[in-house]
């Protein structure tokens, strides 16, 4: 193995069922249901997935959902805004923990 991430491995995603078919099937059935048109459109779901893909920094998911967003008719601006939403939450989640730090300082200092 020359690299941890190989783009060709994305096509093998379904093979995770090989070692545990029952749980694999349950996961992929659930996955398929989640991304169907519902209260959210398929495009909105794809944009959310793109944002999450960046937050969890999954190269496979970024590859898959960049393509899927185009397939679903999203614009480049929508895709980048989605990533900013992910970035804002990730940045915000770091900073909001600053309150804990401030609480601790209050606790320890005069």
């Amino acid at each position, binding site marked *: 193995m020359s690299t941890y991430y190989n783009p060709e491995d994305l096509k093998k995603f379904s093979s995770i069922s090989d070692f545990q078919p029952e749980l694999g099937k349950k996961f992929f059935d659930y996955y398929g249901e989640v991304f169907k048109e519902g209260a959210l459109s398929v495009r909105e779901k794809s944009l959310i997935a793109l944002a999450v893909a960046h937050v969890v920094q999954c190269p496979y998911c970024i590859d898959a959902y960049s*393509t899927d967003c185009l*397939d*679903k008719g999203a614009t480049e601006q929508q895709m980048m805004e989605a990533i900013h939403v992910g970035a804002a939450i990730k940045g915000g989640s770091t900073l909001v923990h600053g309150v804990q730090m401030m609480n601790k300082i209050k606790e320890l200092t005069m």
Partner: protein
Amino acid sequence: MRSLQAENHPLSNTLQQLTVLNTGTAPIAALPKFEDKLEQANLYPLRPTGIDVLQLNIGKMCNQTCKHCHVDAGPDRKEIMSQETMQQCLAIVEKHNIGTVDITGGAPEMNPHFRWLVNELHKLNTKVIVRCNLTIIVANKKYFDLPHFYAQNNVEIVSSLPFYTISRTDAQRGDGVFTDSIKALQLLNEVGYGKPDSSLKLNLVYNPSGAFLPASQQSLETDFKRELAQHYGIVFNSLYTITNLPISRFLNYLIDSGNYEAYMEKLVNAYNAEAAQQVMCRNTLSVSWDGSLYDCDFNQMLNLKVNSPCNHISEFSLQSIMERNIVVNQHCYGCTAGAGSSCGGSLA
């Protein structure tokens, strides 16, 4: 940008394209054959259901050179349909009472006999569709009156506008095309095209500006209507989503950009048997600039003539045409992927 033919590119040879489509690389050769997919759905051999539409490709000459063009059209292409061939087409339309004639190109308006053809079809009371690239309307003063000409002949306009943003449209169709297309759409609206209370139909075509598939036709139509109305005051009737077929310049783009194998796999994986039942070649007959007959405009560009003893408009026989088996190949996956694709948009 010049046509593949002008550059003497290997892919300007249709046999080379068919080789690339069938055995180009090991992964491509390993893809299931389209006829096998049809066989599984009891659709092979694929048979015609009628001739509802006669599609006339009246020339490869065009004022644009789009990166994805399956015709390899452009200003350097000189092939155009003669008036004699048009007359033969008119005779067939009249004799067999064909309901719709769909005129395409290139830019069909650049054929000197174009207006005569449309006038003659109008006299026959046939529905006439013109696939207008929009920019021709503002390209030269001799075309400025086209919106009025179309309206006088009650022509239905079908026009490509790959996206409602400048960047994606110009990336596919050339710099300045979006701005000129918007001007042309506004001129068409001015004479009544696309207005809710008008009989003059203006339909737009979305096709992906790259190696991906079209989104849902309905959702894109909503987006296009909102964006074009809000930013440019433009209205239109319907949006047709059309998948780019892997032939000619789009095939060249796929190979050059390293997307060819993945795109073919995507088309194959998205095969939809329901769309396959409704492919346009079953009720359409395509005529090339030289009068040869094909099952569709894509087969025409691959030089895959109808599988019939009569393969020229001068020797047209309805019986023979209806008895033919439709010629299919690997590019046909483009019409059966996802919601399907045809000159009239999605199928399933």
